């Protein structure tokens, strides 16, 4: 199945793109998507402890299920305001 991955701020810089499509095998979780991403881009790994994640623009946990067509976002620590 295909999911859209969104990356922001420093994660986007490290990946060189803010959006990419990943193929992952079902059943999948956010963690599955992240692992598939970091396998290719090891520089992202160190963010796992501090980032937040969202599925379809709602905050979620790494264990949340991901379905075909979902948008999965990885968010470094925020700095708005």
């Amino acid at each position, binding site marked *: 199945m295909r999911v859209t991955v*969104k990356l*922001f*701020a*420093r994660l*986007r*810089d490290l990946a060189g793109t803010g959006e990419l499509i990943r193929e992952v095998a079902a059943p999948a979780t956010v963690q599955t998507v992240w692992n598939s991403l970091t396998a290719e881009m090891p520089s992202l790994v160190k963010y796992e402890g*501090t*980032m*937040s994640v*969202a599925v379809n*623009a*709602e*905050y979620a946990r790494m264990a949340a299920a991901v379905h075909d067509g979902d948008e999965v*976002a990885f*968010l*470094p*620590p*925020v*700095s*708005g*305001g």
Partner: protein
Amino acid sequence: MALAAVTRDPLDLQALMRDIAEGGAGDGAVAAFTGLVRDHNQGRKVRFLEYEAYEPLALRALGRIIDEARETWPGVRVGMHHRIGRLEIGEASIIIVAASAHRAHAFATCRYAIERVKQIVPIWKREHFEGGEVWLEGATADPDDEKTKLAAYRIACA
């Protein structure tokens, strides 16, 4: 005018205040907060800032903060607009307006809201300073973390 907004346009405090105050003739107190881009940060001379957002979630997070405030201070009316894109020194990055019959509630809501923005709204600042640029990173966003929520509440109500 939407109560919660993430926009590339300059923010209009007066318009938001008018909207919040309208129809609330029982509300005598209006507190407002404006965040301005500073010309320095951590010893660096700032040239300008660039704000990036995960827009749909940022909008929801702002709405969530408004809901939290209403639950905590019943009857308070609150609006918050965050600007994104390139912002020059002195420009407003965020405006928050809270109206209530009680000035303590208006102030507390405003104070709570800005703390919560810094905790849970997926927006990032890229600082362009003299000699380089850097992504600023603050809090790990977790809207369900009751500890950070309580910290914001304590700051607002202390």
